[in-house]
């Protein structure tokens, strides 16, 4: 299965944040931190994306901790593969851009 996937910026940062288990608000904070405040995930967007990513099997919901009741999510092996492929694709994009624009 080698789909030619292009992730949205939201999906990319959600997957990247979930290399370690995180709950919703943690993902929002991590995304903002990683992108130096440029990318802000809104809660409604994130909620929809988390459900869709669980359905795809790229992330899983961890058993709910009885005390905090907050749901945590984590990347699956499949999700990690998708993410690594995306990093390769982004490198290619950036390299091509630099090559063409480099002399300007």
């Amino acid at each position, binding site marked *: 299965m080698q789909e030619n996937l292009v992730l949205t910026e*939201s999906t990319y940062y959600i997957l990247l944040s979930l290399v370690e288990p995180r709950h*919703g608000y943690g993902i929002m904070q991590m995304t903002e931190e990683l992108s130096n405040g440029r990318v802000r995930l*809104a809660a*409604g967007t994130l*909620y*929809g994306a988390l459900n869709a990513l669980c359905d795809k099997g790229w992330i899983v919901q961890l058993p709910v901790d009885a005390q905090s*009741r907050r749901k945590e999510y984590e990347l699956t092996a499949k999700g990690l593969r998708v993410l690594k492929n995306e990093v390769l694709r982004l490198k290619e994009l950036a390299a091509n851009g630099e090559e063409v624009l480099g002399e300007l």
Partner: protein
Amino acid sequence: METRKTVWKWVWVWNFDKEEDWLNAMAMNGWTLDSVGFCVYHFVRTEPGEYNVRLEMRKYDPEYISFMQETGAEYIGRMMMWIYFRKRADEGNFDLFSDLDSKINHLNKIARVLTVIGCMNLFIGIFNSLSGLRLAWINLCCATLLMYALGRIQGKEEALKKERSLRE
């Protein structure tokens, strides 16, 4: 000084974004939405600009509401399928949707609901006209209005899709 205020107001469904603008303008003037009902809005006195208010159409989903609360938002209430949230401005940005896909999804959800209610009114209207009921025109008018609303919502959706064809 008064601390509470009630405003009666009718909002067409295709103006939901203007409704949100209005609620935020009220909040900027020191009146923050506290509860909602049919065509009625109750406000409480707050510092001007203390809160940002957001609304969306969504099926009632307690899980979603607790998810929103985890991120610092307060649940104000719901009116039919519309839910209202507010968040203190000093707790950071407050938006419900941050990308084009989720904005388009939201409009799509509104469009689906309008289609269902519109078709129901159309069928009831036709059925009642055929059986000679005098009030059949009411449903037919409702159906027409709902189809108009659907057109307005789809217009917004098309504009966003056009934008999405160029950027994420």
